[in-house]
């Protein structure tokens, strides 16, 4: 059965994030009070890396169940880690854990268990900074992902296939994304093809469409293109998404349209939850 390989130190998997850093990412994201889209995405990615590290932490260290890469596309297309990892593409998770650009202290409001709210200081490590400048060279970003992963799948033939999550607020301004996405998702390990998940984030307060199985309800050609390049979710991810309250059919794709802040985080959570870790 495909997409069933154990994720272990000997056979790690990989996550690649492709992040739109075009000029329009300065607009506020739907569902938050004037928080810029680029800030929301940066927070979501940093939080997700944080969660992934905690999930893989054991004792004093972090087990290298995953390699992680963040590519930004806007004025340039390049690896987008800040700090000690700047310029690196795929980085083993333990190294990500030990090399954040900085660790912020943020305040979280939590229930005090007696009907009140208390403020708790939490560590918020930052690996990825918000940026919004230039155009939307999505095709070039997908090509870069293809180049990185074509080597990776050769080195890890038995691994659970890499998952690529592309987050954007607009249309590609280069020749992309269809041919580049097809090349990317044609890469495979013995356990299945590379999965491509797309998340379109919105400034408009419209009902998001998440994990659709048809493009019939999508409002424009651009949405239909992103739908067409999104992978059909394997059964294991479908189950996870169902458990989180999403409704899915067997043809549901890893795609979110007009996602607001809440849906962005839920979408990323499902996308990175494949957890047959040993």
């Amino acid at each position, binding site marked *: 059965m495909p997409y069933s390989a154990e994720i272990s130190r000997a056979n790690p998997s990989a996550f690649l994030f492709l992040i739109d850093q075009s000029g329009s990412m300065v607009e506020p994201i739907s569902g938050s009070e004037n928080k810029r889209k680029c800030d929301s995405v940066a927070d979501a990615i940093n939080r997700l890396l944080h969660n992934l590290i905690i999930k893989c*932490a054991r004792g004093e260290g972090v087990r290298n169940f995953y390699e992680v890469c963040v590519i930004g596309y806007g004025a340039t297309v390049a690896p987008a880690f800040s700090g000690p990892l700047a310029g690196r593409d795929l980085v083993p998770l333990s190294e990500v*854990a030990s090399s954040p650009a900085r660790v912020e202290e943020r305040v979280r409001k939590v229930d005090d268990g007696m009907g009140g709210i208390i403020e708790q200081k939490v560590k918020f490590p930052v690996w990825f900074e918000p940026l919004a400048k230039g155009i939307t060279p999505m095709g070039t970003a997908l090509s870069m992902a293809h180049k990185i992963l074509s080597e990776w799948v050769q080195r890890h033939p038995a691994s659970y296939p890499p998952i690529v999550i592309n987050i954007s607020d607009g249309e590609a301004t280069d020749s992309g994304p269809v041919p580049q996405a097809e090349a990317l998702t044609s890469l495979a390990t013995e356990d299945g093809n590379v999965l491509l998940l797309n998340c379109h984030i919105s400034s408009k307060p419209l009902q998001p469409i998440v994990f659709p199985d048809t493009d019939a309800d999508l409002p424009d050609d651009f949405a239909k293109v992103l739908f067409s390049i999104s992978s059909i979710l394997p059964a294991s991810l479908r189950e996870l998404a169902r458990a989180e309250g999403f409704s899915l059919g067997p043809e549901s794709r890893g795609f979110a349209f007009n996602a607001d802040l809440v849906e962005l985080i839920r979408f990323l959570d499902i996308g990175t939850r494949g957890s047959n870790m*040993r």
Partner: protein
Amino acid sequence: MVPFVTAFRLPKNGYTIDECEDAFDYSLDSLRFAISDGATESSFSDRWAQSLVKQFVIEPPFGVPPTEDSLQFWLLPQQMEWQSGIDWASLPWFAQEKAERGAYATLVGLEFGAHGTIWQKFVGRALAGEEMMWHAFAVGDSNLFQVRDDELLHAFPLEKSEDFNSRPILLASNAGNNLSALKDIRAAEGGCKPGDLFCLATDALAKWFLAQHEAGEKPWQILRQCQTEEAFAAHVKLIRETQGVRNDDTTMVLLEWRES
């Protein structure tokens, strides 16, 4: 009646025995046997599992079976020991945050004779022909099996292979996280005769045991033949590769009561 014990623990494939988060302990003096499976998803769960089995053998929780309160009380010193055994200051941020969530583990404790009374144990062992008693309690999905006359007599606490899921209720090293576990203490007891076989097993092996039995097999026969660690490892490797057994830490304590 004399007890003969074989016990083995194996790590997941690809891991060393030092990384195995299962634990067992037993004493032929007190006739107590315990097994525990530290949750892989939590940190320092190996130490947590070890402290539970060790303490059960030294001094089990009060009561047959223990009550919610007595188990909570019994856990306290071990929870403190677990906390103080971690060098918090030297841990990097992620390890600290993970460890703050605490460790989790299953526990099955099996004891022969009436709880804590040497006299009844002595009588139990001395009076040939009269059944000695056993009693056990469990939290989580590690299992106990009793086999008599080549038939499965008891499977405890889980009775069917389909009962195993990946989210068992576990004992936590953080006292505040034990509310549901303490409400789910399972208990069982029974008699014990010469020739009886008792098997304590962690989930992967226990699930296989029940699935084999459901298919009309007698899995205890092959486990009984595993007299060395090599033989046990070879058997576990085989069932992992050919019978879909999960690549998990795997531990077994096998106790056979023979005629003296």
